[in-house]
């Protein structure tokens, strides 16, 4: 069965692309993923803010207590070299490129004006085939206007896309007043791919111990519905290639998203849950399904159930919910 697809000009042997996760932190695991059939790999994100924080924190604690007491003017040896800033990440890109034959998509979350472009260029130099911009701003300032926030997204994409020769995708979150308009703006800014949607870790509360704590939950197949709707709506309306992310656990989950219009389906939670070898099973499930349903190639199903092509386009719109309530009543 021909499972090949294309994504932002990259030809992929299948739509199954592990998304940014701790799995891609090790070159050995990436090699295992390739062996299990990964068509490309999105590396874990480089978080600039975290890097900066780590740099400052390390510096703070290495200097803390120094030059205070005559017997102990310092507490740590001075390392010969530091892997500062993105050095280690760039090295990871290089080593991954050397280790595997599949396309390598580097993922970036920068935080300062100018640094998105600077890092993206260095990713390109290090050999990344494409860049996924993991952009999210969590605007907590009640005085910050929406338009300015949205413009920031667009500016980042324009800045990066205009400065590198490799394709740029955006991993988008769903919390926009108009996802469709935002997607369109990003397309115009130069994005060649959109990955829908970014999942945020939402904090939880421990009511007995009176604590707020980060709650890391793996996705469930149900969560793909949100992406499914918007992929179906956007397919054919914008020129960006669409990737589905979140909730792809089995072949059937992938098939639905591909039918909605995705060219690529990212996997993360399923691989963390079932292991790297699970990728092979999902691929087999897709191939079997295509055969059983008499499709000649994977490309044949992409977008067949998008809003433009499906039998009931209004099913993807808001009225859907209202009608459901009415019918229930």
């Amino acid at each position, binding site marked *: 069965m021909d499972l090949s697809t294309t994504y932002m000009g990259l030809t992929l042997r299948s739509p199954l692309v592990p998304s940014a996760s701790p799995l891609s932190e090790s070159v050995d695991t990436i090699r295992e993923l390739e062996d299990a059939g990964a068509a490309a790999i999105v590396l874990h994100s480089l978080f600039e803010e975290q890097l*900066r924080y*780590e*740099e*400052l924190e*390390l*510096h*703070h*604690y*290495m*200097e*803390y*207590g*120094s*030059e*205070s*007491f*005559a*017997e*102990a*003017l*310092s*507490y*740590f*040896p*001075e*390392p*010969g*070299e*530091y*892997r*500062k*800033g993105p050095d*280690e990440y760039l090295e990871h890109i290089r080593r991954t490129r050397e280790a595997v034959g599949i396309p390598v998509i580097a993922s970036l979350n920068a935080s300062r004006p100018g640094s998105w472009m600077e890092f993206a260029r260095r990713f390109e130099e290090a050999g990344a085939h494409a860049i996924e911009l993991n952009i999210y701003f969590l605007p907590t300032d009640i005085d910050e206007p929406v338009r300015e926030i949205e413009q920031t997204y667009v500016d980042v994409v324009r800045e990066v896309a205009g400065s590198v020769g490799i394709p740029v995708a955006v991993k988008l979150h769903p919390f926009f007043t108009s996802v469709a308009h935002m997607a369109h703006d990003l397309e115009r800014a130069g994005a060649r791919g959109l990955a829908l949607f970014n999942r945020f870790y939402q904090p939880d509360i421990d009511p007995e*111990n*009176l*604590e707020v704590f980060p709650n890391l939950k793996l996705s469930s197949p149900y969560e793909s519905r949100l992406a499914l709707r918007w992929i179906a709506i956007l397919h054919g309306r914008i020129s960006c290639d669409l990737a589905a992310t979140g909730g792809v656990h089995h072949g059937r989950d992938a098939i639905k998203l591909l039918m909605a219009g995705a060219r690529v389906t990212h996997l993360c939670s399923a691989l963390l849950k079932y292991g790297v070898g699970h990728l092979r099973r999902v691929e087999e499930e897709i191939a079997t399904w295509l055969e059983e349903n008499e499709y000649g190639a994977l490309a044949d199903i992409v977008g067949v159930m998008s809003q433009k092509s499906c039998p009931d386009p209004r099913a993807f719109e808001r009225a859907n919910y209202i009608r459901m309530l009415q019918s229930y009543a």
Partner: protein
Amino acid sequence: MARRTITIDGNEAAARTAFRLNEVISIYPITPSSPMGELSDEWAAHGKRNIWGAVPTVVEMQSEGGAAGACHGALQKGALTTTFTASQGLLLMIPNMFKIAGELTPTVFHIAARTVATHALSIFGDHSDVMAARSTGWGMLFSGSVQEVHDLAAIATAASLESRIPFLHVFDGFRTSHEVNKIVMLEDDELRALVDEQAVRAHRERALDPDRPFIRGTAQNPDVFFQAREACNPFYAACPETVAKVMQRFENITGRAYRLFDYVGHPEAERVVVLMGSGAEAAHETVEYLAGRGEKVGVLKVRLFRPWSAEHFLAALPPTVRTLAVLDRTKEPGASGEPLYQDVAATVLEAVETGRLDAGVAPRVIGGRYGLSSKEFTPAMVKAVLDEAGREQPKRHFTVGIVDDVSGTSLEVDAAFRVPAEGVTQALFYGLGADGTVGANKNSIKIIGEETDNYAQGYFVYDSKKAGAMTVSHLRFGPRPIRSTYLLDQANFVACHQEVFLELYDMLEKAAPGGVFLLNSTKGPDEVWDSLPALHQQRILEKNLRLYVIDAYRVAREAGMGRRINTVMQTCFFAISGVLPRDEAIARIKQAIEKTYGRKGEAIVRQNFAAVDAALDNLHEVRVPGRPTSDRPLRPPVPADAPEFVQKVTAKIIAGRGDELPVSAMPPDGTFPSGTTRYEKRNIALEIPIWDPEVCIQCGKCALICPHAAIRQKVYEPAALDGAPEGFRSVEAKGKEFAGLRYTIQVAPEDCTGCGLCVHFCPAKNRREPRLKAINMEPQPQHREVERMNYDFFLALPEYDRTKLKVHTIKGSQFLEPLFEYSGACAGCGETPYVKLVSQLFGDRAVIANATGCSSIYGGNLPTTPWSVNREGRGPAWSNSLFEDNAEFGLGFRLTIDQLHDYAVELCRRLADRIGGELVEQLVQAPQETEEQIREQRARVEALRERLAAIDDPDAARLADIAHYLVRRSVWIVGGDGWAYDIGYGGLDHVLASGRDVNILVLDTEVYSNTGGQMSKASPMAAVSKFAAGGKPTEKKDLGMMAMAYPNVYVAQVAMGANDTQTVKAFVEAEAHRGPSLIIAYSHCIAHGIDMSRATDSHKLAVETGEWILYRWDPRRRELGKSPLQLDSREPSRPLKDYMERETRFRMLFKADPERARRLAELAQQAVREKWARYRHLAAMDVQ
């Protein structure tokens, strides 16, 4: 070709030469020599090579004895070998040094000479250590300046290789080892030209080698030993000339001339001072000045002290000299004079007797001591010595620099005399350790020294406390080399980086007229004047000082630098001082920032750049009004009700005027009163914990974890509240046993360091506002007065009867009065909570042997000490012997206690019919297991004394003298992991094997903390430390498991922050065990690179990941048919990386070498699994 200059300190100057001239470097850290070894290790780790193209091997040993042994071995195999040490460290090397010299083996040991501990330990400099090594047969070359250190390190090495005499290359600890100065660098080619390759080859050819075997190190007998010992004489006879030749060669190569004895002064000098080391530089400066004014004075700098060359000495003297004033920086009690004096006196005497000198013109010789323990040695003192030398009847043996009102040895010094510092900018900076002042000043010196034609010198005075430590930086810049080896006595620029110092110190006393005073203050340019105490206003007006102010904390905070005001204040210094044009200075500062921090990350550079720019915008010159507006005095150093000794002696030391104390003020045998920290109110906390009684669950955890005993709890009768200050907090005590009583938690506002550990450890949250707890940090200034009154009242409340407390519980133990309080330990210290717990549980009958290290410093460093006494006058009796011998020292306590106890029992029995048989039996048989039983025994002893008073028998008098030994004593042997795992392990092992009733508390910080973070055998795998820059490749030594090999040893491993209940239980059980007990206590440390306010999280993670297993091994459990081992922590539930990610000591390796970090982390995880399996197996062991 212009010679390259560099601005470095003496230690680095020595190490830069030694590293390049050696192949094997075997060391052990000891202040002030540690940086030489650390730098060598760093360079080796970075792949730096010696002049022959090899990277030297640097190895850290378990003691200086070990380092010397390894040196001896390396030398015998033909390597060019060196080490660096000082003080007791050198003393531990002496046995090997006799061997090395006896075998005519070339090597140089570089010594940052330091005081040997006598009546007290001192980390500072004098020659008592090297003088103790005089008889080893080593050559001794003395350097007096940083340049000389750099040069003579090379000369010593070349001379040693050629003469085959090993050399000590000596320079003054701190004064030279830590002085930063601009020097000309020795290039590799120059070193190659200096060192004779033939001599190196000859050294290799003498090495042990199975291809051409021989035996060296025989045992000899009376028939030949003596002759064999004399056989080396020709080598010693030839050595001075060899050194002279090497010095000449050095001069030919570098242009810098040295002689065995260098004379400076008037060509017809009549009075010549003779000395060696850094003091010679001050003398040089003084003599040049005086000779320039026509005085016939000179100084003879002794460079080659051993082998002593009388001929060279005499030849170096001007023939006109009438009096030689010989100065020794050491004391040899009972000798006819100190070593240099004796040599000079003998030389002159022999010269007269042999006719080399005419008796009529031979100079008289007088001798004096100066500069012990880095005591200042100034031009005024040099002049005083020269003046004395000119008297008709001078003191033949004198001291200079102190007031000796006991033996009358001291010379009068004209304090007003100074050598003018023409063209020299002198700047004095008062900073806090934590604010980065010293680092900034070192940076400024480098900028001026390396980027301008100026010479620069910096010397830094540190505090004796670790928390809230004050630093004073003394900087000089000028167009000529700076020889002033003494502190500034006048400054054109004075900077106060901490507002709080204003109320404590007369910091403008040394300000020069017309100078500048820069103040970091939260007060703006319009308010700052009125905020100054009267004395400072007066000095500013009298001296016509220009006053500048900046709110550096705000600037630093806004730049994201927290409380590091270093860059801000450095910028202000350059902007005001005019040492460089302002724009150029700013550019240089930024270059220095880029150079220093660039490789660490752009964020750090950006942050510092922002601070530089903002500093200039926020610096204001203050318009000084023409009159004083303040009548506020400085705060007295101690309260008015302090005891007489504290008022007369301690207060002066606190105020920084200890130099003024005469000999009579000092105890002659090092004995000081206990519990003096309570009189030193330091007020260093910015925030202190304030108690919320409504939320409090009265668990006592805050008091338990407090490192400084600055938060305490009490229960008391309601009536005791009579007269309580308004606002004194008190609630009904919880718990049946305290029914009807009141309860208070009280902070000591002026003693708290503001570390925040108590708040983090407090388990009680305010359920209405969960961000708050039962104690909450609030600004100290606004609570200081009220809480001070509250605390005074609290202290006066009666102590709860300790016999009624459940002392094995957290809550119960924390009602016991701490007898270890307000120490100088770091804020948030991880050791002191354990030490304090010992003082609470057993302090009123404890004798403590304390190994040298952090705990001996915060436990025994003047001016004030924390070991305290209770209302009955009882408290821990504490002493520090050495680093290496502490277990044996403590065993000695036990031996005496047992001996005198047994003798007391014997005397009781002997006098039983007169004392009363029943009382004697009770005294002898008393179980003394509980607080109540101890109290009863004390009462019996009192009764015994009363009866003995009526018995007229010498035995009764003897028994009365020792009757207190019938009350059970608790012997505690306390120290860190450097002592227990490394240098003292042999002794510790022996004491464990002795079966005697001692309690050994190992405060395991897993690194040498006191000397600045060197690896110990307790360091965990993958942790970065000095001497393990690439992460420690081996596992932590399992000291507990090794101790369990002895059948009668109680062993516990505890971590207070993870399981405080187990900790308290372990301490109680260990003490109750009538054999040796060992407690290994997880002690977080500043050297781990963690947030100290949340350090208890590290305890928890260490336990949850299995890095630190909690257990108690109690041999008594065998009697119950159980395995002695109880595991008190669960199977590791989290990966080790969760723990490692928290701590800089692990994290920095991931930045420096991520591959290696990952590999070591995996190995460490595997080691944790195996260790757990071992312990689990042992706990399940069937002993039936």
